[in-house]
């Protein structure tokens, strides 16, 4: 009964989404405020029904209802509760339901926080989001219904893929989906602006906090994914350039470009059509990511079962959504105009080059990800593009971008003077060059790449510190006053930039100084690595809730003193019979110790192959991601977004488009 209710709710949600997608947009075209007014209630109604469907599927999972095909395929009665809950997004059908659920959440958020926007704008934005939802709900009903029954019911479920039985899975996909789906808001704003033909700074201002929020989720999502791969796959790596990872990384790159380009469009009215194109691309890449993962066009460790009918449906959907928006773009964009002029040395030009480099980076990742497909489609054979390509292309693009990152925030809008900038950066440049030369010597190994890594990292950090120092020094008022005089979006930006620096430090340290030992160890054997001594104490059998494990014990000591004991495991899951490696990790600010079990050595007395890694500063990689995300949150919480909405509420009527421009200006240098 419960699954049928869920199914029914999806059908109702589809009808509501259809109304939400058609009538308000029609109303906006005809200036009919009754039709436009339908947008918000429909959004709420759709949310309610999709939420019911979501909880129906959760209930089926939690109560082990194996008469539901999805539950039989992705759960098991022995599966611990939190993973039963997370199994909802462990497979294709459930992931789609989650996707749609998150889309409806974003839609009601937009409905709620858009009270200060003109009615046509709101109607169009919510309408566009409704149309996207129609596509996903149809997809679910016709090719991927999560409520499909399995009769007669299975006695036992097939269990969730053991790779996914991990706390990371409980939060990583929802986080990433919030990001993916969040780009639909920026997309809807861009389409609404194209439809309305009014493309001014206000449009950019409205869509900025939404875009930044989506970017924050994407940042956390990609970061968590990388962290999950690090501790769950047992190979000690943190990024594999896997097609599915790339599918999440491309929207991140483009959204990063978009938040910068929106800033220029808002502040200076420059390169508007570029911004619109980026907004369309960011969402298109999110959709494409979904397509690549779901359709089975590319192979990946993350791939779900393939089904040609699904592939055709998603492709048709992609063509309709992306094709029609690009068509709209081709038709409307020429009328937008180019906006304000700027000098070759100015903040605009710096941000433009940042945009270009991020876009080229996204394009090169795109090419690398799809190249095997192109080659195969042209009948030239089956190939795969590996890590060397991505490193070779990506790193050279990021170097100038990071250098530019230090300059951008201190350059003036419109026209910056070179001597003035030189005065402001010389100390930062001097410090970072000095550190880049000396730090590797202190660490004990000097190579040009390590040095370059440190140069970039400390360049970013020192320019931020110098700029903040300059802004916060001065004579008037106390430090507190001066701290307050800077906006939160300024601090947010600087925090995110420091995050990039921290991230680069992590990457450089790991690449430059990691140590790895892959050895056969008998019981009581010891191995030296990175100044530590690892003693293998043997393996014993353990039983988990739904698996049995061989658990090793490794005692780590330094200078004869025992530091810690580590317990790497090799698990075999009962239902699927799949083996899994659970690495033991001892994290630390200055690096991780990482031990994982390989295979038992046959015909030996309890010997195993054991992998030991020393990963210096590896956690800085994710700390950097965390700082970037927090910076984004700080920027979104900026007063001006709230002041603006409060102020327009008061002035409603005499300020039609919500344009108290003076709130915006004056905050920026």
């Amino acid at each position, binding site marked *: 009964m419960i699954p049928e209710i869920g199914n029914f709710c999806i059908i109702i949600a589809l009808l509501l989404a259809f109304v939400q997608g058609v009538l308000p947009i029609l109303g906006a075209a005809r200036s009919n405020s009754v039709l436009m007014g339908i947008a918000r209630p429909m959004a709420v109604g759709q949310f309610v029904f999709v939420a019911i469907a979501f909880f129906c599927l959760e209930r089926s999972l939690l109560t082990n209802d194996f008469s539901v095909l999805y539950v039989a395929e992705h759960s098991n009665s022995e599966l611990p509760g939190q993973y039963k809950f997370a199994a909802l997004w462990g497979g294709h059908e459930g992931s789609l339901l989650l996707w749609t659920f998150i889309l409806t959440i974003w839609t009601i958020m937009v409905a709620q926080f858009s009270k200060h926007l003109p009615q046509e704008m709101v109607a169009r934005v919510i309408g566009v989001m409704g149309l996207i939802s129609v596509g996903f709900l149809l997809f679910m009903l016709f090719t991927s219904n999560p409520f499909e029954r399995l009769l007669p019911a*299975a006695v*036992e479920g097939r269990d969730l893929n053991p790779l996914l039985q991990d706390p990371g899975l409980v939060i990583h996909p929802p986080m990433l989906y919030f990001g993916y789906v969040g780009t639909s808001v920026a997309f809807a704003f861009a389409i609404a602006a194209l439809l309305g033909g009014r493309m001014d700074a206000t449009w950019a201002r409205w869509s900025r906090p939404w875009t930044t929020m989506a970017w924050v989720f994407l940042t956390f999502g990609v970061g968590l994914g990388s962290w999950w791969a690090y501790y769950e796959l047992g190979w000690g790596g943190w990024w594999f350039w896997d097609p599915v990872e790339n599918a999440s990384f491309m929207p991140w790159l483009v959204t990063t470009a978009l938040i910068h380009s929106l800033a220029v469009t808002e502040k200076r009215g420059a390169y508007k059509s570029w911004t619109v*194109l980026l907004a369309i691309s960011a969402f298109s890449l999110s959709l494409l990511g979904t397509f690549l993962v779901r359709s089975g*066009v590319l192979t990946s460790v993350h791939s779900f079962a393939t089904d040609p009918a699904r592939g055709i449906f998603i492709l048709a959907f992609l063509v309709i959504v992306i094709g029609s928006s690009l068509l709209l773009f*081709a038709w409307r964009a020429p009328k937008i105009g180019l906006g304000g002029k700027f000098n070759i040395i100015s903040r605009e030009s710096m941000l433009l080059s940042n945009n270009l480099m991020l876009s080229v980076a996204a394009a090169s990742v795109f090419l690398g990800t*799809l190249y*095997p497909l192109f080659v195969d489609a042209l009948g030239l054979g*089956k190939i795969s593009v590996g890590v060397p390509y991505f490193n070779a292309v990506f790193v050279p693009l990021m170097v100038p971008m990071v250098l530019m990152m230090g300059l951008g925030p201190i350059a003036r809008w419109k026209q910056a003077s070179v001597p003035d900038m030189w005065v402001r950066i010389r100390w930062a440049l001097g410090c970072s060059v000095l550190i880049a030369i000396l730090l590797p010597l202190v660490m004990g190994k000097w190579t040009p790449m390590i040095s370059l890594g440190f140069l970039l990292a400390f360049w970013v950090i020192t320019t931020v510190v110098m700029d903040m120092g300059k802004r916060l020094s001065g004579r008037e008022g106390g430090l507190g006053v001066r701290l307050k005089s800077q906006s939160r979006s300024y601090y947010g930006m600087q925090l995110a930039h420091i995050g990039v620096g921290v991230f680069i430090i992590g990457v450089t340290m790991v690449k430059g100084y990691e140590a790895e030992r892959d050895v056969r160890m008998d019981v009581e054997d010891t191995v030296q690595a990175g100044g530590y001594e690892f003693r293998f104490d043997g393996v014993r059998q353990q039983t988990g809730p739904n698996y049995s494990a061989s658990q090793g014990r490794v005692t780590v000591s330094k200078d004869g003193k025992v530091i810690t004991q580590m317990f790497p495991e090799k698990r075999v899951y009962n239902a*699927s*019979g799949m083996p899994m490696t659970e690495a033991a990790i001892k994290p630390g600010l200055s690096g991780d110790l990482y031990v994982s079990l390989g295979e038992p050595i046959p015909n030996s007395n309890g010997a195993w192959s054991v992998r030991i890694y020393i990963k210096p500063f590896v956690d800085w990689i994710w700390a950097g991601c965390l700082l970037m995300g927090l910076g984004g949150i700080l920027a979104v919480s900026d007063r001006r977004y709230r002041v603006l909405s409060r102020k327009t509420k008061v002035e409603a009527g005499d300020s039609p488009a919500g344009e108290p421009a003076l709130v915006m200006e004056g905050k920026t240098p």
Partner: protein
Amino acid sequence: MRYILPLVAFLVLSAFLYLGLNLNPHEVPSPLIGKPAPAFSLPQLQQPELQFSAQEMRGKVWLLNVWASWCVSCREEHPILVELARQNIVPVYGLDYKDKAEDGKNWLEQHGDPYVLSAADREGRVGIDYGVYGVPETYVIDKQGIIQYKQIGPVTPQVLNQKILPLVAELNRK
């Protein structure tokens, strides 16, 4: 004009994606195709006291179907195999992969037994030799004991009629 470029680029991309849908990246040419089927000798599922070995099948074209009671997709292909067995075109042998004997037998009782016999690969060792990486899988093996075709995933009527049966007919003629 330049505003149309993104659209054009996207349409080209879509064409490639469309072509990509008809390709199968999982169709990794199995290294075993054209090679002798790995030898094995395993107890039979229904009569564990008897052994079954691949060598017995020399001189016959036969199918080896890897299945398990815990495998949901196996249910999907099972009616097709039952129907195939009824038509008596080609003998189908089963490899009950990583399964408990009781579960396997019950499953065959419930869904019908299309197999001449099933070998019980409880530990999955034979599966490793054959490079099984997902159940179900089906192998077409010729008179000389050479693997001629490998179907990964369920046998669909389409695969059966377009690939497996024509291949079996051709191999029988040789």
